[in-house]
């Protein structure tokens, strides 16, 4: 039936979606997929591949629903605001967006600068590090704990919870069991925190969320928990992924790194370009709630759809030149943070962390390379690395 299915290509393997994250060259995988606007993987999902169609699907949030996806993240209620559809979604974003607006995030900069210095200081005299373990993981997680006013001693607990939810070990049954158990722990943890906050009010992001009103009423404890739960899984992993991707690339391509080291003014555009090029979140899921079409291909109601952000970001038929990495690129209207009403809530925090990391790390360690014999292994789903061993001249 493929020939009659206006434009829709049928691919029998789901592996191709994994490769969008795991390949050392995901751009090449995406290029092949873009030969068709919609690629069907039978009994699994349809992939939206081209820039224009990706924008189209992201904008139609009531047809391509997040709420209907039904993704198991160990939660028993929808995560707020991600798994809530409009119109209620808009109300939550009105509360949350101001708390994550760029001006608010800029206040955190001195703290992030100090933290980067502290992390680099732990390995700079050694001449080597596991960038993933010693920098990319602790940086965003520590920022997150401070932002929410939670103790640093809970770092390891948070890391194991988010790993058990995002990439649990074991077969499918074991994975579901780990997710569920981690989910229970998250609810229990934030339940206790909320109890404490009622007795001892604080002044931090969590306090501002607790104090928020929706339609003239305070948020319920469940709502605050469902927001915190989402922060835990959305806020920790994706900045780690981005740092891994960026520094692995810069370690291997000194001419690009040289640009960042020689002229710090290039860093804002470098961050945008590295986000576009690497697209650490290669795809976002949706489910159609009515019959629709994308790029002339019919998509029935109830279909699971993967919107390929990374593919849209490198679609050089839409914008010539997107098949090259250019850290000074302008304009660069990429979709690495998604688009439409679900645009990444934490994007301005992520940008701040990534800019500060690029600037401060390179001031301290301008030259580095992959440790000899390193073979990079990118993770499926969200594109990060299991380990990123770097070597450099020890800093006294």
């Amino acid at each position: 039936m493929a020939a009659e299915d206006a434009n829709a290509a049928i691919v029998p393997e789901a592996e191709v979606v994994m490769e969008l994250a795991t390949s050392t060259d995901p751009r090449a995988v995406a290029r092949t997929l873009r030969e068709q606007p919609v690629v069907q993987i039978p009994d699994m999902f349809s992939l939206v591949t081209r820039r224009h169609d990706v924008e189209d699907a992201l904008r139609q949030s009531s047809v391509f629903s997040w709420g209907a996806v039904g993704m198991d993240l160990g939660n028993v209620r929808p995560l707020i605001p991600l798994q809530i559809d409009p119109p209620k979604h808009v109300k939550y974003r009105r509360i949350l967006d101001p708390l994550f607006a760029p001006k608010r995030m800029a206040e955190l900069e001195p703290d992030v600068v100090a933290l980067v210095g502290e992390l680099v200081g732990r390995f700079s005299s050694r001449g080597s590090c596991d960038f993933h373990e010693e920098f990319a993981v602790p940086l965003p997680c520590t920022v997150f704990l401070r932002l929410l006013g939670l103790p640093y001693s809970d770092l390891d607990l948070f890391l194991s919870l988010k790993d058990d939810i995002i990439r649990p070990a074991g077969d499918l049954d074991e994975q579901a069991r780990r997710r569920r158990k981690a989910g229970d722990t998250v609810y229990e943890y934030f339940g206790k925190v909320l109890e404490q906050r009622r007795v001892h009010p604080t002044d931090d992001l969590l306090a501002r969320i607790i104090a928020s009103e929706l339609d003239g009423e305070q948020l319920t404890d469940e709502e605050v928990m469902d927001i915190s739960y989402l922060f835990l899984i959305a806020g920790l992993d994706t900045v780690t992924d981005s740092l891994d991707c960026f520094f692995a690339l810069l370690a291997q391509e000194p001419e690009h790194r040289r640009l960042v080291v020689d002229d710090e003014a290039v860093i804002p555009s470098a961050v945008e370009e590295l986000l576009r090029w690497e697209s650490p979140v290669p795809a976002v899921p949706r489910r159609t709630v009515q019959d629709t079409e994308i790029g002339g291909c019919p998509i029935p109601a109830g279909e699971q759809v993967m919107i390929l952000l990374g593919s849209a970001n490198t679609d050089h038929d839409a914008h010539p030149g997107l098949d090259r990495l250019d850290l000074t690129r302008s304009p660069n209207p990429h979709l690495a943070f998604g688009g439409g009403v679900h645009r990444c809530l934490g994007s301005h925090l992520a940008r701040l962390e990534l800019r500060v990391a690029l600037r401060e790390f390179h001031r301290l360690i301008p030259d580095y390379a992959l440790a000899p014999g390193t073979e990079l292994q990118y993770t499926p789903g969200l594109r990060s690395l299991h380990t990123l061993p770097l070597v450099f001249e020890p800093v006294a």
Partner: protein
Amino acid sequence: MRVRLDAEACQGHGRCYMLAPAVFDSDDLGHCVVLTESVAPEYEDAARQGVENCPERALSFAD
């Protein structure tokens, strides 16, 4: 040069006011506010940067 904002399409990516603070600002939500719809010649390049970097195509030139 005139700049037009489709406020419905803006999702608060914040690219415009980060790149061209002389032409664009943000409201409490982090969504775009056009400071001067009619852009003075010295800010035309900045305005163009803001318009062309919007991932939602929420900004355009009116003439």
